[in-house]
């Protein structure tokens, strides 16, 4: 039954990626990107890569998002 979860997760990845693409508000986009990274972390757990999952959760979802947010706060918030 577990592979169903995999499929849902993977589809969710696609959805978040598209979300990043369409969102005009950069702040929102970076939050969605964070969700993308977190989902990715879970996928990696599913693929039996716990160390990667941990790193991705911390670095991908955490640090990168924070960096994005800092940049956005210092520059522009909207895309156009």
């Amino acid at each position, binding site marked *: 039954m577990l592979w169903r979860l995999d499929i849902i997760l993977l589809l969710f990845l*696609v959805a978040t*990626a598209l979300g990043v*693409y369409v969102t005009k508000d950069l702040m929102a986009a970076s939050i969605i990107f964070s969700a993308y990274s977190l989902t990715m972390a879970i996928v990696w757990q599913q693929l039996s*890569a716990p160390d*990667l999952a941990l790193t991705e959760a911390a670095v991908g979802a955490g640090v990168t998002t924070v960096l*994005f947010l*800092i940049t956005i706060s210092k520059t*522009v918030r909207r895309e*156009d």
Partner: protein
Amino acid sequence: MIVQKLGANFNYVIATLLFCIGLFTVITKPNLIKKFMGLNIMEASVFLFIVSVGAVREGSAPIVVKGMEKGVQFVNPLPQALILTGIVVAVSTTALALALMIKLYEQCGTLDADELKGMEE
């Protein structure tokens, strides 16, 4: 038949799809921050692909636990070690890029690639 094949390679299909979405974002979005989100999506998709290559269905994590019986199938640990390096590289690239963007914004007052291009001339 096609569905079966698709199911067996579902990870790869998704990875490719994500790669394309990322690339599309990089190419079409004028905003530099957005471009970089796209690049991050691309990177993650490549990592997903590589880990999927090493993954064995129903294999266990490559960690030796006490009292483990022999013959357990491990997933291949090498790709994961590579990806770990890859993630670090990706985040440092992102950090550098974002620092550049802040600098660029201070100098030019915009992060729109088209406007910046106009400024270059």
